[in-house]
């Protein structure tokens, strides 16, 4: 079964498993070939393709995307632009791609979204490595649940315990993020 461009975009917006699988099956090989031909590995391609889909998702959260090209051209252009940015960071030889870049105007604004995606990916990686109680407390705090209520819900001794634990969790998270080599890159 084939999906229309609109159905694919809608599927990304709703994280539909069937559509996501379809995207990988249909469009990933082009990106993989492109990355492998331009100083990258299949693992680079997999990362890049994943980030491209998340960039598209983020873009759609801000405002609907209306494409004047088909999805194959669009995702290929997004991947190509993101790969160019990666190579720029690596100070790699860009001639191969630069000479080839005739980007669709519609992918011009993915750069900003990509920077956010890279940063937040790092933050989320370290957040997910915190003990589960830390993750829960920090989320509840951000949902404006009171320390008293958090203590009650999570079976903690009291508000003071929640506050000190939250402080320690956040402090550890920030230290771990800052100690990550990728932090200076993003």
């Amino acid at each position: 079964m084939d999906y229309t461009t609109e159905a694919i975009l809608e599927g990304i917006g709703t994280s539909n498993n069937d559509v996501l699988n379809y995207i990988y099956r249909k469009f990933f090989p082009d990106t993989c070939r492109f990355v492998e031909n331009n100083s990258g590995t299949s693992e680079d391609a997999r990362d890049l393709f994943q980030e491209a889909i998340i960039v598209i998702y983020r873009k759609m959260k801000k405002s609907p995307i209306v494409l004047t090209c088909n999805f194959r051209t669009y995702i290929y252009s997004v991947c190509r632009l993101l790969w160019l940015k990666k190579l720029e960071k690596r100070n790699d030889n860009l001639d191969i791609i630069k000479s080839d870049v005739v980007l669709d105007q519609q992918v011009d604004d993915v750069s900003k979204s990509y920077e956010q995606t890279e940063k937040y990916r790092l933050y989320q990686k370290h957040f997910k490595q915190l003990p589960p109680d830390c993750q829960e407390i920090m989320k509840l705090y951000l949902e404006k649940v009171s320390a008293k209520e958090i203590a009650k819900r999570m079976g903690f001794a009291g508000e003071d315990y929640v506050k000190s634990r939250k402080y320690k969790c956040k402090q550890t998270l920030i230290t771990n993020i800052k100690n990550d080599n990728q932090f200076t890159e993003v």
Partner: protein
Amino acid sequence: MMNEKDFDRIENYLDGQLNENEILDFEKDLMDDLDLEMELNLHNEINEAIMEDDVMELRSKLEAIDIPATTEEKRKAKFHGKWRIAAASMILFIGMASVYYMLGNKTYSNEEIFMNYYKPYGIVINTRSGTDTNEADRILDQALKSYEAKNYRTALSLFQTILEKDSTNLTSNFYSGISNIQVQEYLKANKNFLRVLDHKNNLFIEQSEWYLGICYLMTNKREKAIETYRAIAEGNSFYRTKAKEILNKLE
């Protein structure tokens, strides 16, 4: 590095815990202090990232998509299968033992307390290392994934790789400790938890005290276990109530 006072101010500012004057002071300082402003932005961005459940869910779905597996991945999948069977047998054994216990055995042996109170520490991992992640991070990521998949021996060998370079690595020591309990290497687990506790200031202190008590029980050091659980029961630990229950059964 941010000092503790500014860290507190930033957090309290974002949590809406500052009074009117404190907010004015803080905002005035922000105008003159670029580092403080950058730090506030970082805290703010992290808060935003934490709340992106939808993006984290999408990422984990993308990671789960099966792109043609390499031979190595296929081999691992086969290996995981064997351990799932072992884990299922273990659960069956624990279940049967629990039934036996509930049917009226009144004395509490160390093993019975273990069966009633021990469970491996939970973890949620859904990020995959990027290619630019450093080697240690990549190994830690794999180790935690093996741990989450209950492949404790694989996890142990990966944690060991990290500990060979840095024996004080807290995450590796803590999860090695749990993995060692899972494979019944209680003395090794004991060492792991003591290393975490030696560090004195980290997120795994309460958990390590709790599991250290378990190790003492399973190596027949009942007095040491009582001492450990008494300290937990008298403190402000998350495990305080459970520690009291164990003490009642042990003493």
